């Protein structure tokens, strides 16, 4: 074959496609998908609650709301704290970011602790009828997300000590913080469904 005609090459403006920078798109797509699994659980909860011949197990007459409410307030406000941390990072106040971020983690951990206390004081178990199963399934699955969120925040905190970590942007922190807001919104729905709608 003959060599490439140089004239043809000259007219040509090669395109470039960057390899990175898709992380946020991918992550948002993932979160949309993840939210559907919660929606499915919520729908299942609603259907079973409306149709089950016996909803609450014998000897149980509802859930205590005060403790979970405090827990919810902590979790929901931690979303704002996380946002605050992002603002600090944006302003390149690294130490302040770390402190506020750590506070978010602490609030998340408090939530998990509160959930643990609540679970251990309940008089019904996973196998106590439809309600018992759904209660532990939903709160447990959400709790797993909270734990994941706290662990991811820990990872981001750890990485913030790496020199030059933010040269390429703050994608990691932004994604984790988005995840955290997601976990919070889900909790609000879950709280309404399980505790408010009794």
């Amino acid at each position, binding site marked *: 074959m003959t060599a490439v005609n140089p004239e043809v090459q000259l007219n040509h403006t090669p395109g470039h496609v960057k390899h990175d920078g898709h992380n946020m798109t*991918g992550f948002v797509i993932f979160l949309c998908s993840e939210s559907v699994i919660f929606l499915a659980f919520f729908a299942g909860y609603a259907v079973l609650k409306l149709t089950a011949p016996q909803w609450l197990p014998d000897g149980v007459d509802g859930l205590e709301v005060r403790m979970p409410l405090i827990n919810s307030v902590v979790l929901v406000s931690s979303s704002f704290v996380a946002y605050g941390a992002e603002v600090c990072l944006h302003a390149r106040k690294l130490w302040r970011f770390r402190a506020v971020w750590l506070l978010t983690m602490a609030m998340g951990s408090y939530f998990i602790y509160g959930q643990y206390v609540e679970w251990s004081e309940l008089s019904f178990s996973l196998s106590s009828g439809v309600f018992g199963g759904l209660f532990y399934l939903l709160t447990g699955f959400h709790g797993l997300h909270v734990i994941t969120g706290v662990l991811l925040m820990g990872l981001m905190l750890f990485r913030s000590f790496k020199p030059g970590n933010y040269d390429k942007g703050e994608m990691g922190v932004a994604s984790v913080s988005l995840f955290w807001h997601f976990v919070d919104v889900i909790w609000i729905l879950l709280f309404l469904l399980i505790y408010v709608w009794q």
Partner: protein
Amino acid sequence: MTITNYDPRILKAPHPVPGAPDNWKRFFSFNTDAKVIGIQYIVTSLFFLLVGGLLAMIVRGELITPPADLVDPSVYNGLYTMHGTVMLFLFLFPILNGFNNLLIPTMIGAPDMAFPKLNAAAFWLVPVFATVLMGSFFAPGGPASSGWWSYPPMSLQNPLGHFINGQFLWILAVALSGISSIMGAVNFVTTIIRMRAPGMGFFKMPIFVWTAWAAQTIQLIGLPPLTGGAVMLLFDLSFGTSFFRPEGGGDPVLFQHFFWFYSHPAVYVLVLPVFGIFSELFPVYARKPLFGYKFVAIASFGITFLSMIVWAHHMFYTGTPNWMRHIFMFTTMLIAVPTGVKVFAWLGTLWQGNLRLNTPMLFCLGGLFNFIFAGITGVMLATVPIDIHVGNTAFVVAHFHYVIFNTIGFGVFAGIYHWFPKFTGRMYYEGLGKVHFVLTFIGATLNWLPLHWAGLLGMPRRVASYDPEFAIWNVLGSIGAFMLGVASIPFILNMVSSWARGPQAPPNPWRAIGLEWLLPSPPPAENFQDDIPTVISEPYGYGLGHPLVEDEEFYVRRSLEA
């Protein structure tokens, strides 16, 4: 041989080329190149087509005579359950992901997928859940036996009381497969949204990319509920909950909703890419632009949307209230509209075209023919009074095999032959290909056409023994099935021998229009590398004479030099 239409000087003596198995080791490694992963997916799934096919041979062997004589009825239950599961989760889903990997990046001019490592991880989950699923055969009490839909209360039976039992492993495998598919879907959608070549607006994308996108959207929305349902089923089976256990206040029909909310759309996850393959191939082999390109593109998302709101048509006979039946009958019939748009677009493309009947085109035409037939039986089944009669009979088996094998399977074979030269750098043998097609077409027709009659006469599905009045249809069906088994021989021969030592393939043996055909065969790592072309026209400009990209000549020459 009938390989014509390209410069015979290029048909050099066989010598190793980069796609050939001489550096086969990379196919066994954690490689992140989408083209390697694509081939990994395809070869793995073809292996499982053989496994699933073997199970089907035993099932059909049993059904060739009315009494249950070949295998025990309880073994039979395990066989068809595993057959269906293997075919869906280890053959069709992975093979289409193989196509996605090969075609999406090359068709949109991207160097690779958006997340190459995630891509490789998603693939390597396939052997993992394949092992788990195959492990089901060795579990105490035998494999999962409650059908591929695993309805409770059947799927909650665990008479031997082992924690690890066939059904347990089955659920685990399905959940892992869901995770792998979600990882894939995130990757494909991100790639399509973010990595198209300059100038490639949405309405310059090839239809395959449209359909892949529409299909992966279904995965993203549908798989989570299925996984949720599977988790709940697992809890019921192993951890003492009673979500779906009627004796504990649960609702078995709720599981059916979870299951079909995904599994109806899932058939569109499978068939949409095949619509894409049809839309790519008909214009090439008819030498005409795709008729109604924009409508075909948009219809893909029409199907995605409608497929989400029809699931209860699988539940017409399981206690679904009448008002719900009517709604779902209506929505199901609506889906014929976007599907019809596509069928007419293909017929319009073929109309007065200059048809070239090579193996890929034959498989496409056969697939289209079968699909029209399957569409008719589908609309019959969507009609509540008919479905109440033939639901759960052999008629249903016949219908869905007409879709799942006679359409989707055919489309997959068409795609394999069509893109084989591109990604292996070798031509396949046309003669063997035609033998494969003829055997497959006759075998498939003989296998499933008679079952329609058996079903209409009332033969139930999922039974090892049946009334002798159905014998004739089943004998025909079994002969067809064994023919399909035989058809795999020319196929395997063709693939192995042409990949190893077939004639070297030119970059564009079919004179096709599309970015992938501007690359060398096989394409180098990173595809266009730093010279990504700028797209200037709509795809499928056959006979219109205008270039697809700026400086097309440069790319053509470069692909020839490689």
